[in-house]
């Protein structure tokens, strides 16, 4: 069945492009495929992968952004994860933080649990939600030319982006999942560890 939100982008190619030469970009990934995609693009201490805490990715990004106003935060997550934390789109916009972007890898499916249709696969438009919440810059990308343009903008602007990816499942690439290790190495790489 084809639905209006069906995408064709290859999620691994998209994420590899968005995270190419990341510099000191601070990256938070939502649980499931976004975490696997970021790990496959190259593990690094300034990637904080979620393996749980569904719905929390954007808010973790906001906490980092407020703490590190001179750096930029990219939250990379899936449609299901963002749908669970949809209120955070209003909270981030209301916070006034400008050094954060959110990119949603949207295949309209709950990929981790058997590819059941999510709300975006049933007609909900997260880009429209973000715009209604007060995000000033909202983009939907459907091809790699658009993705290549987003790579820089996501690191410089306060942007909400929806990336229309295909629904096919990729081989799992499992980055580290010990939360204490991930948190500690992130803080050390940032130079904020206290011991």
């Amino acid at each position, binding site marked *: 069945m084809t639905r209006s939100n069906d995408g064709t982008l290859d999620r691994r190619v998209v994420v590899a492009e968005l995270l190419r030469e990341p510099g000191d970009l601070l990256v938070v990934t939502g649980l499931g495929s976004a975490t696997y995609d970021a790990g496959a693009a190259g593990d690094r201490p300034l990637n*904080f992968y979620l393996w*749980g805490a569904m719905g929390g990715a954007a808010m973790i990004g906001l906490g980092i952004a407020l*703490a590190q106003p001179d750096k930029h935060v990219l939250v990379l997550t899936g449609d299901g994860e963002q749908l669970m934390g949809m209120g955070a789109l209003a909270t981030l916009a209301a916070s006034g933080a400008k050094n954060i972007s959110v990119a949603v890898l949207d295949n309209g499916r709950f990929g981790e649990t058997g590819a059941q249709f999510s709300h975006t696969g049933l007609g909900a438009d997260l880009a429209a939600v973000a715009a209604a919440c007060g995000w000033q810059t909202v983009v939907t990308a459907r091809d790699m030319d658009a993705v290549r343009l987003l790579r820089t903008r996501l690191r410089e602007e306060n942007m909400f982006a929806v990336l229309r990816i295909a629904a096919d499942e990729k081989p799992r690439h499992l980055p580290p999942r010990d939360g204490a290790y991930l948190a500690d190495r992130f803080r050390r790489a940032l130079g904020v560890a206290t011991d």
Partner: protein
Amino acid sequence: MQHPTWQEGVYTALKTAGITQIGYVPDAGHKHLIEAAHADPDMKAVVLTTEEEGIALAAGAWLGGARCALLMQSSGVGNCINMLSLPVNCRMPFLTLVTMRGEWGEFNPWQVPMGSATPHVLTAAGVHVRRAERPDEVAEMVAASATLAFDTQIPVAVLFSQRLIGAKVWVK
């Protein structure tokens, strides 16, 4: 000279503990803290749509080298349970100040179930729970709880009893 209220003492304790971010879902019992946070140019006050956002916010603050506290009402504790796996699993500090409802002079029956469950569900989720009953102990308890949370990297909740904050007045 006006005597400082216990609420002012709590705000001072948060500042002394190095808190620079406060996430909150509004509550009458936290009114002073919320207003003080917004009036303080060195404090980032973040209004949340649901309390669990504050746990993720606090985790991000810690990752970024800052300290955050979450202000909520006991009814909000129930919204937080799965997100509490974040600080527990990542060995992160977490400090929340919870105004209690449903226990002392409560008028609204809808507040009772979550008020009664609050200390139990927090404990079950791995949060260390303290409870303040008297105005003269609150600021010290918040200060000690902040030390415990941030120096040993554990989640800590301080419950402000409804007797302390005063039962909500329904007929004014």
